């Protein structure tokens, strides 16, 4: 009806869409790990550590608590890859046993913080007003405490157990989740597409779940990954100070605490558990950093040439 050269059909010019855009989510996640060297190294390390933690103990010939007085302080050898400790217990078996404890504490603590912090941030920012203000001040007060100090105090109050470690470690990271979510929700609320959703008549819940939440999840994923790393460290340091898990529970921090007295006689006691700890933390940090850089448009600058 209209001789206009740019009429209707003209908007349908083919856009050159690169092939990767047609990939499924799984392919894209896989592609990310294959393309980013850090992510790949981190992932391999993590898989190895997880395997060691949950399958490893079944593969080693020694029980972690089995003493052998005739073989005390044995240096690493083919029969004891990581050597033995003051009661002749096999260090490899103990490190493997410590791994599963580390993962249990770290995963529990990070998820607990996520489960408390994220909804807290979402709800308070959505309600706003006084509730939001008061919550914010409380979060400020928690942040004023050095994280490790807070964990120490809480663990002292609750007594050493896996569950109290969860809470003690999670507590100081709750504000971080609450802030990430609150910040993102407030940021997203300002976006025009949320306003546009109001304009087509979306309800409040639909807006929260369909529009805001999907945009908040990525930064949360990064935080959880990085929190695994810090939870592993905090758990180890608490146990190292003798405030975390106590024998007979085996933890890397406890092993290192033990090793401290025999540094001169048996340095391997310090080296192996520490290395296991460092590699685990490293794997989480590598993955977390890679995801963050991938999501951050600042570090993922593209070739715009205005």
């Amino acid at each position: 009806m209209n001789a206009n050269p740019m009429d209707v059909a003209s908007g349908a010019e083919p856009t050159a869409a690169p092939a990767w855009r047609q990939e499924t989510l799984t392919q894209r996640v896989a592609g990310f790990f294959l393309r980013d060297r850090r992510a790949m190294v981190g992932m391999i390390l993590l898989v190895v550590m997880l395997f060691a933690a949950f399958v490893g103990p079944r593969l080693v010939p020694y029980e972690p608590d089995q003493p052998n007085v005739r073989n005390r302080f044995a240096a690493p050898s083919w029969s004891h890859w990581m050597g033995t400790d003051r009661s002749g217990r096999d260090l490899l078996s103990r490190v493997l046993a410590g791994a599963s404890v580390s993962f249990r504490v770290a995963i529990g603590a990070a998820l607990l913080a996520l489960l408390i912090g994220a909804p807290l941030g979402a709800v308070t920012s959505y309600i706003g007003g006084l509730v939001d203000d008061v919550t914010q001040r409380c979060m400020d007060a928690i942040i004023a405490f050095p994280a490790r100090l807070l964990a120490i105090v809480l663990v002292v109050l609750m007594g050493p157990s896996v569950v109290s470690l969860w809470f003690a470690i999670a507590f100081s990271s709750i504000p971080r989740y609450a802030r990430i979510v609150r910040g993102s929700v407030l940021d997203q609320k300002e976006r025009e597409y949320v306003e546009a959703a109001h304009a087509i008549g979306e309800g409040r819940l639909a807006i929260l779940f369909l529009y805001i939440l999907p945009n908040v999840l990525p930064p949360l994923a990064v935080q959880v990954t990085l929190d695994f790393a810090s939870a592993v460290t905090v758990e180890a340091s608490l146990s190292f100070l003798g405030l975390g898990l106590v024998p007979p529970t085996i933890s890397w921090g406890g092993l290192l605490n033990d090793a401290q007295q025999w540094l001169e006689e048996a340095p391997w006691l310090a080296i192996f558990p520490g290395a296991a700890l460092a590699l685990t933390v490293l794997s989480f940090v590598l993955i977390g950093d890679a995801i963050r850089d991938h999501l951050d448009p600042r570090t993922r600058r593209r070739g715009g040439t205005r």
Partner: protein
Amino acid sequence: MALLDVRNLTVDFDLGAESLRAVDDVSFTLEPGEALGIVGESGSGKTVTALSIMRLLDPRARITHGRIWFDGQDLVTQDESAMESIRGRRIGMVFQEPMTSLNPGYTVGEQVAEVYRHHLRLSHAEARRRTIEMFERVKLPGAREMFNKYPHEFSGGMRQRVTIAAALACGPSLLIADEPTTAVDVTIQAQILSLLGQLQRDMDLALLFISHDLAVVSELCTRAAVLYGARLMEVGSTDAIFTAPRHPYTDGLINSIPQRGQPLQGVPGTIFDLRTPPPGCRFHPRCAHARPLCHRDVPEFTRSPANTPGERGHVYACHYPLDSSRG
């Protein structure tokens, strides 16, 4: 002799896995005291052209071909320290975004005064005096009090005046203005345009004015160059180009300006992806006059005879140019 003579300028971006040509074989000249408008839409390469002259390209970009003669020197071959003595002293530049182009941590006075101190080795007091003079020149109200203010206390229009003051502080012979009025209100745009026009006359400046807005270019410039998809389409006097364009793209741009009671013509389709430019004439996929030749061969530049004596002619790259007697 031309003050600025850009010849066959070609700029490539290396984006890791792929690369693209952001400026492709662009040539134009600018006489002392003359105002040339570079017109184009996003992706046309107009900003990259300007940054090439300043040699302030993104690290991933490289001038792969061509010469930029400025006052007898080829800027392409100058080293960084030579460029530093040219920038801000002999060529000034004003950018598009007044809200972000000033450093938030220093007073606006300091950001102009440092140019005097650096290029002219003036003392702090002398630099301050000259800065206030310059502020008066760009009509910043209450120039003396403005010296100690921070950028965030200024509106966009005021900040743009500050960046103009900094660019013109050392009396350059060329000013490059990259969409200086795109981000400001219409009444402010008029103020800035008339200020630039006045400064150009008073300081005998050559002006390279980059804009997507034909009307603004027509207001300020005597000549205009039209870019599309990294290539030059047409160059000539603004009169010739805007009243009797020979290139269909220029014609399309003019027809994209809404006029009451007339059907909006314009240009169908969208610009191609710079990573995969079409063969032949870049504009042929959107051109109503395209014929098989356009799909195949890159058009050479053609010169249409100058209409008035002294005019440097009207050049266009099109196999089937529009009739010049029209309009």
